[in-house]
């Protein structure tokens, strides 16, 4: 593959005090790919996702977004300095994030949530932002809820608004951090359905999830994290059909029965 990967993670370590959560993780995600990260809680998958959008600063290692380093700014002389927050903020616009807890802003309407960043960060006019916001809400099938406040929506609807909010920045990659884990079982399907549609439209996605069915069905590639390392990765059919490592076998056994 000669094209520049959309996301390249290079040997990322993350340490909290004496606890090393990530012990050197590297991988690439190419345009249009859907990558699922699975693993037991505490395996480091959420931390890895938070490093990718720099909500956590990697202790060592770096992340490249279309070839541009997220953590460091290289100058002509080849020396590297930590990137200032303003530039990180600019680069984050290319990463749409959907959180486990939705994290909608409760004092804004649904549309207000979706257009806040396009309007005030990307500088679109309110009208253009509202137009874009309407399109994004349509993609998650919530155009009729635009003027509601988040508190009046179900969990599944809130999470779909969160997806629309991330889409509205027209990001290069969508990051999903356990998007269905705080939803009641009967509400997960509507969210997974929207995510399937996004994948079918060719959206580049990194998904941390416990939904094995979704991972198997939608992903181009599955990564199994264990103790801060990628224990096993590959295409889902191969991974789930013929798991290589004993740990992964135990892990999926727990989810299947």
């Amino acid at each position, binding site marked *: 593959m000669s094209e520049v990967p959309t996301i390249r993670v290079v040997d990322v370590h993350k340490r909290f005090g004496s606890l090393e959560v990530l012990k050197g993780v590297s991988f690439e995600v190419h345009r249009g790919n859907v990558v699922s990260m699975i693993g037991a809680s505490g395996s480091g998958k959420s931390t890895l996702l938070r490093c990718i959008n720099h909500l956590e600063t990697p202790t060592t290692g770096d992340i490249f977004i279309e070839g541009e380093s997220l953590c460091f700014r290289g100058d002509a002389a080849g020396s590297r300095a930590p990137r200032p927050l303003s530039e990180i*903020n600019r680069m984050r616009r290319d990463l749409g994030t959907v959180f486990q807890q939705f*994290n909608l802003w409760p004092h804004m309407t649904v549309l207000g949530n979706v257009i806040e*960043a396009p309007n005030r960060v990307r500088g679109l006019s309110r009208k253009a932002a509202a137009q874009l916001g309407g399109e994004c809400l349509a993609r998650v099938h919530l155009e009729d809820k635009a003027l509601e406040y988040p508190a009046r929506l179900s969990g599944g609807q809130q999470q779909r608004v969160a997806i629309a*909010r991330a889409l509205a920045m027209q990001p290069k990659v969508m990051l999903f951090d356990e998007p269905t884990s705080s939803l009641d079982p009967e509400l997960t399907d509507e969210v997974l359905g929207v995510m399937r549609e996004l994948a079918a439209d060719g959206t580049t996605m990194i998904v941390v999830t416990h939904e094995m069915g979704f991972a198997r069905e939608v992903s181009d590639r599955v990564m199994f994290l264990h103790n801060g390392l990628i224990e096993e990765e590959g295409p889902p059919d191969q991974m789930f059909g013929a798991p290589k490592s004993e740990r992964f076998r135990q892990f999926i056994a727990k989810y299947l029965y």
Partner: protein
Amino acid sequence: MSETLQQLLDISIFWEYRTVLLRGLAVNFYVFVCAAIVALSLGLGAALLRVSRRRPLRALGTLHVEIFRNAPDYVMVVWVHFVLPLLIGTLLHTRFELNPFVSAIIALGFVYSGYFAETFRAGIEAVPIGQIEAGRSCGMSDRHILWRIVLPQVVRRMLPESINQFISLFKATTIVSLIAVPDLMYQVSMITQQEMRPLPLYTGAALVYFAVILVASYALRAASERWRNKIFA
């Protein structure tokens, strides 16, 4: 007893002085509004210091809160009115005086900034960190997050508690009569000295404040509940 009752019910004296007394009540409101503006701005500043990531700034915010929250308002009014001008005068090498209005507003503003700072801080800390992270993930700057995501929620969240503080502040404005700001209480004292009829005058004053504060607090509470419920249902 019947004579005192008659005297008590004799509100004609209040009617006689109605313009002076109403003007006094207006002074209470004026001092209240100015002091509230000072208290809210200083309180927000102190709260931001207290949630700062830098330790010295946090300590400074804590010091501000602990001094002013624990200071009796009357003592602060007296201190600001009689000591502060002398200190400023020494610094500037000139004679310096504070208008009693200004002293009152500074003193009450500072004292209540201590209370408001704590309310602001609790409100800021109540905003889930995930909402801030959601803002960061959209590429918002910290200032944008503060003004657009955090503070609008803080204002809504702190409303019920801050209504109590606004009412305390309004009640505290009666203290300014003691440094000769011509508020309602000051006028009542002046009229009492002329008429020598403390019973109806002080009872009337108490009833006026009671009525104003009771009505204001019920109205404000009802209004804020309605506004708040829309969002934090």
